[in-house]
């Protein structure tokens, strides 16, 4: 792809003897929403963590906004300012209030003043209807609330790319939709996103491209219509069949 915002080229990675990524190629353009689907252990999380250099790649290259991550000259903190990541386990800082959690990035990384940081944080919390929880500690919030705070904590950095790593997988089912609603809003304003998810319905709705990962490789890639209605690979079919079965039972 010409001028892709993110270009993953032939990336391979091992954890000891286990190969977790196997010659992965992926291109993501600005404003694209790419959904990664696949079983646990298929490499989705690892791929996302390689994109912001939480994990190192052993073969291949990743180019983000024109910068190669394997060049050895990367300012990793500057890269991470551009990329927001939200984890399955929310990872809010428990010793800080909700407001302080959201303010930390703007204050210490973007070096904004306390007032500016507070304003940004309050606005974001207002947008997600959690303004009233600003001075609470994370342990007082539900999982869905904590995850939404985690999302706006990442957004407070005004990233150009958002990586979402199965952010609803740890939530009670009734809390999932409020989080998906927030993510839907982000896709509508054109945020470039790579989303690892088990929520097939959601992926179908928001993705411009869906990638099925299996054993560390992208087995199949296409539009949601192609992947969900008419997958070509056998393993894609059986994965989708299993997932849809599970959804029927739930």
């Amino acid at each position, binding site marked *: 792809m010409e001028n892709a915002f993110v270009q993953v080229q032939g990336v391979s990675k091992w954890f000891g003897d286990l190969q977790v990524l196997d010659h992965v190629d992926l291109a993501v353009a600005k404003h694209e929403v790419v959904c990664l689907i696949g079983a646990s252990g298929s490499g989705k999380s690892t791929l996302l963590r390689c994109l912001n250099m*939480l994990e190192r790649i052993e073969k291949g290259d990743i180019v983000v906004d024109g910068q190669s991550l394997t060049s050895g000259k990367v300012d990793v903190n500057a890269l991470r300012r551009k990329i927001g990541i939200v984890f399955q386990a929310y*990872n809010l800082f428990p*010793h800080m209030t909700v407001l302080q959690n959201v303010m*930390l990035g703007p204050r210490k990384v973007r070096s904004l003043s306390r007032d500016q940081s507070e304003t940004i944080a309050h606005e974001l919390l207002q947008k997600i209807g959690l303004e009233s929880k600003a001075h609470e500690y994370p342990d007082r919030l539900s999982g869905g609330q904590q995850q939404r705070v985690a999302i706006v*904590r990442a957004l407070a*950095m005004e990233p150009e790319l958002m990586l979402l790593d199965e952010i609803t997988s740890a939530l009670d089912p009734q809390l999932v939709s409020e989080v998906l609603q927030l993510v839907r809003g982000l896709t509508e304003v054109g945020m470039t996103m790579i989303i690892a998810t088990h929520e097939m319905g959601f992926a179908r709705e928001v993705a411009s491209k869906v990638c099925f990962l299996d054993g560390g490789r992208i087995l199949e890639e296409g539009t949601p219509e192609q992947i969900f209605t008419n997958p070509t690979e056998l393993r894609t079919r059986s994965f989708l069949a299993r997932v849809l079965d599970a959804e029927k039972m739930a």
Partner: protein
Amino acid sequence: MHALHQVLHTFFNPHSFTLAMPDVWAGFQVNLKMMFIAEALVLVFALMVAIVRGLPGRGAKPLRALAIAYTDFFRGTPIILVTFIVGFGLPGLQLGFISNRSFTVYGIIALTLVYTAYVSEVFRAGIESVHPSQRSAARSLGLSYGQAMRYVVIPQAVRRVIPPLLNDFVGLQKDTALVSVIGVAEAASLAQQFSTQNGDFPSYVVAAVFFILITIPLARFTDHLVAQREQRERAQAF
């Protein structure tokens, strides 16, 4: 019955008890001074050693090795020996400023050297107990290693280790009595003086009571802090 009476008279004789108090109290003020200064110094230095111990990268290897050597040496050597080395050795060097301090100062130095080593291990355990996902989350926001440590990891680490930390401080408070071996005129040595002059032992009990009087509030304060913190940090997702 006679034995009980003997015990009561030898250790708890009210007359001697009251007589010993002013002397022992004068000595105990030296203990208090040593413990407050040493505790403050230990808190700062121990955190520094713990941080150096955890510095990443090949370049920091000599620093890490130094930190390990320091903690190994001062945790492995009896405090009384360290006290002798500092209290008799430093003056023996005859090197101007460092050889002319008071015994109390040497006592503080010895206590600080030893307890920094113990407390740095406590801090290190605390730092390592903070889940790596916290570090990942902090670094993912763009915080540098130093910023992530300062704003996210260390605040959590320190809160977690308050009980063992205060436990070590109780140890330090008691060990201020040990430095009497280099001639510091603190509670234990003054109790001993009084005992020799008076021919009985209530002065020792007086000294013990003084120590207990500051240890117990510290223990209750620890309990209070732990309960407070537990409330706040109970629900992290994983």
